């Protein structure tokens, strides 16, 4: 009798303490959601690309002349991840618009994935409401020109139509897919700790977004969006922190 009670307590404790882990072992390439690109000599803000909110890939060819060069952006609204030849260089925001590019001298593909969170800042700081990248981008003081701007259909593209492959060691943004089993239907909080910035779908239904700068680290997945047995989760990750897993928590997670 004593034993039985003790065992019961242990089991209860392990259920609450060990969070269920979801492994993301598949990836869908971002090219699938590319929309019609716009080419121009200078940067166009998302307003001119008819993107009210969401994501645009700004890309151009750069030539580096030394092993370390400063890439400087005039305006970043609201968040961007910078890649050179598919390798993450870092993130930039309007508060931090300079980044160092480390390469051997040569020609490279510069890709800047920008999210416009579409939020109206009705603070007095508001002077204009342009979004995306605009003004100049310079590399060691020289203006980067000839941009190709590709709106990305992240939010509206049917998740079921994405083509996934087994995940390879690449750093570019993309969609990640994982599966998890549930025995019991109840509300769960998806713990995104470690991931950078993105959007989440469960069983092809949009459940929310996340950003590592926020204190809030979880997204509620209501029980009505879950099924008993196998559930599918798809994550679009912009920054790509090379995370492999997320966890399910029974309580909201804050840092």
């Amino acid at each position: 009798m004593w034993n039985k009670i003790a065992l019961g307590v242990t089991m209860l404790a392990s259920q609450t303490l060990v969070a269920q882990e979801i492994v993301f072992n598949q990836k869908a390439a971002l090219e699938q959601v590319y929309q019609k690109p716009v080419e121009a000599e200078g940067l166009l803000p998302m307003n001119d690309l008819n993107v009210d909110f969401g994501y645009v890939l700004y890309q151009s060819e750069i030539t580096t002349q030394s092993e370390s060069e400063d890439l400087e952006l005039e305006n970043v609204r609201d968040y961007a991840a910078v890649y050179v030849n598919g390798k993450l260089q870092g993130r930039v925001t309007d508060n931090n618009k300079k980044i160092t590019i480390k390469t051997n001298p040569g020609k490279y593909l510069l890709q800047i994935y920008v999210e416009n969170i579409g939020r109206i800042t009705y603070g007095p700081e508001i002077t204009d409401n342009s979004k995306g990248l605009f003004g100049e981008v310079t590399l060691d003081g020289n203006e980067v020109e000839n941009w190709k701007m590709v709106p990305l259909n992240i939010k509206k593209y049917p998740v079921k139509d994405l083509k996934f492959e087994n995940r390879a060691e690449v750093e570019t943004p993309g969609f990640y897919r994982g599966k998890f089993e549930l025995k019991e239907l109840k509300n769960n909080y998806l713990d995104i700790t470690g991931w950078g910035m993105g959007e989440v779908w469960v069983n092809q239904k949009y459940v929310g977004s996340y950003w590592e700068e926020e204190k809030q680290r979880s997204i509620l997945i209501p029980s009505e969006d879950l099924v008993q047995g196998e559930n599918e989760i798809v994550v679009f990750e912009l920054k790509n922190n090379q995370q492999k897993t997320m966890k399910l928590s029974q309580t909201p997670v804050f840092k």
Partner: protein
Amino acid sequence: MQAYALKAQTVSVDLSGKWKFQTDVMDFRRGSLSPRYNHVLQEEIQLPGITDDYKIGYKVPYQYIDRLTRKYEYMGPAWYQRDIEIPAAWKGKKIFMYFERTHWLSSIYVDTKEVSAIDYISVPHNHDLTNFVKPGKTHRITVCIDNRFQYKTHKWNHAHTEFTQINWNGILGEMKLIAIDPVYLEDLQVYPNIANNSVKVRLQVNNETKKQFKGKASFTINGKNYSLKNEVAVVSTDSVTFVEANIPMGKNAKLWDEFNPNVYEITAQLQTSDGKANYQHEKSTTFGLREVKQGKNHVMLNNRPIHLRGNVENAVFPKTGHVPVDDASWERIMLLMKDYGMNHLRFHSWCPPKAAFRMADKHGIYFEVEMPMWGKDAEPDEARYNFFRREIKAILKEYGNHPSFVLYCNGNEITGNFDFIEELTAEGIKLDPRHLFSGSTARTRVKSDQYYVSQQTNKGPVKVYEGLPNTDWDRSAESDVDVPVISHESGQRCVYPNFEEIKKYANSPVEARNFEVFRDMLQKNGMLDQANDFFKASGALTVLEYKAVIEALLRSSKSAGFQLLSINDFPGQGYAPVGILDPFWDSKGLVTPEKFREFCAPTVALLRYEKSSYFNTETFTGKAEVYNFSNADIKNAKLKWWLTDESGKVLQKGNLKNQTIANDNVSPVGEFSISLKGISVAQKLTVHLSVNDQIKNSWNIWVYPSHQDLMQSTDQVLYTSVYDDAAKKQLAQGKSVVLYPTPENVKGRKSMFHNHFWNPIMFAWAPMTIGNLVHNEQPMFKDFTTSYHTDWQWWDILNNAKVIEMQNTPEKLRPFIQVIDSYDNNQKLGIGFEAKVNGGKLLVLAVDTKTDMDKRPATQQLLYSIDNYVKSDKFSPQVPVEETFIQSFLNK
């Protein structure tokens, strides 16, 4: 000084009346120059009051565009002085000088010595003068009120902003000198427990005798048909003692909520003795038996979910220039909230005075109050942080007993260090369990949040700024997070200013000089006679937007409520006349409270439907829901629907199944379909839904026959999308031309159904227009049913059109679809107009007539109506325009 009884143990002397006064814009304290408090002040002022009442300060010569103009600006220290005799009988007593509300720092100088300084902004200033005045002596008391910013807080914080209420200098409300016994009640807090109908009373007893005191605290609780007495013994030698008493209130005690705002008053009387002297002191407060908890998606009051139908209150008080501190002014506002079906006020970046809480307690309004905190106010600044740390405690102590004080939030749209925001929020929860706490509206979440006011969650947008011509949508999924979510600053649809309001400011400290600028500009542009039409047409659009906005938020069963910005105008930030009430909280005459309550009330009939414009071959399908956050479920509800035409004649009707409608929820109650066959003539119809013949709501739909072969040229009438030689020739022959350029080919702004968000001065982005004025009495609308304002049938017309700049046409030319320009621009704009050109008759319509026409019954009908018109003898434009004008708005 005669107004007190010497024998009483607590004595209060009213300090209102005449005070000596002097300004001090130089702040002479800063140098070695002779500071004001060393001298007898030379002028006089009446208190309570503010410097503006006496035209003190800089006589402002400007016409501020982005706000009302303060007539006399004063920002600096100002000195107020009185010689006050401290009665000899006050020996041994504590002596306080109390000001109910000031802005922002008050300092007291006793005979040239500064003895006390307090810089709370949300609560009374109670200066302890005991150690600095001598009973039996007359002291020169000089008060310095300094309304300069005491901390680097955001200039827009409504607690001290110049932009809504003004940043006044003065003293408001009660002002008095108080003498009390040295063993006294510093604080009285009442914590209700509704599980057993009891209250825990917590007293802070201060003892300045340095001796042991003994005695009792007696409690009297009074309410309607209710009285109770109770007492506890007290004994202590400490200088501060906390006394707690649990007082069962019995089964006759009633709970407080919006439907039954039962308020009780408790008086604690402290009677003690130190062996030699007897001491007595009394303190009273009102309270309500109620508990607030965090529910899954709603705020729980007395264990039932409530739904907040609220208004954002931004300290808009142009009549006085300062927040009113009297009950009557606040009672008016609470009754207006009830009139318009609301139960909630959010005090944006400020906390109102006691009278507001008293009247909300009395009428059952739920408050969210805030500190003066906005934007970067949470960026590191230790002095500012400490101000906030003091202020939150002061707010909870001063107003915590009020049952109407349901929600606390630190402030508005805060950025900076959220560890500090978390610290304040967690501290609040620890200090006072009678409210729910939240870190910031509409910004980063913190762990201690017990609710969240935002325009979006991590699941998507929860604000609603505008309606749609369809209603089968809501914000439920986006509201479903770990805490209850309240929709932040929804609405914000701009109405053209009503210049009639200018005269209302005659006796105010502020003036609508911006309105004068706007009005003069409209006059210069030849449209002053249309000012009232612009106001009425844009106002009607705002009303129908608010109906759609509020209904969408009521359909959102997982939303905790909404805060409309706002039912009254906001006279700052560029001037945002978004209200159905003006800044004086007077109705603009755009909608009656009864009509407003059809879509904003504790119980509202709702309908989800696919669209507003139909062909007469289609069927209207409505999914009925009932939002019920009233006091009870609705047993065996009879649900009726019916369809009327414009004359009010019932065309079709039916019932849904009788059923009991749950309380505290939004319930689907059934579907119905109405075949629109047989509606042969284009017309506006109204779908009605009622619950027990008492709760009623209605929605307009438009039914049109479909038209083929529109826009066919005849010998007399040429339809053309380009202004070419053929068109010119046709006009030169005195014939008719209908020019319908593709929108891409028209210069100017894109047309939009919605009127501008908030205001076009602060947010200078599209559409920069304030709705449309339709000249519906003119014959081109004979077969197109429309009011003078746009309604949902205009959706597909306006969203597929361009706005033609027409300021350079003769003054007499008025476009029949006239777009209302931003009031700081006031140019003549139109989508459709007619004119005499080169001897011919021209009608121009800058509407897309090609895309998806089989889905645009209203556009088809408008074209049909215009076609009948231009082919009739009624088509006879009176005003000539030059051909160059036609070319001026076309790209080619």
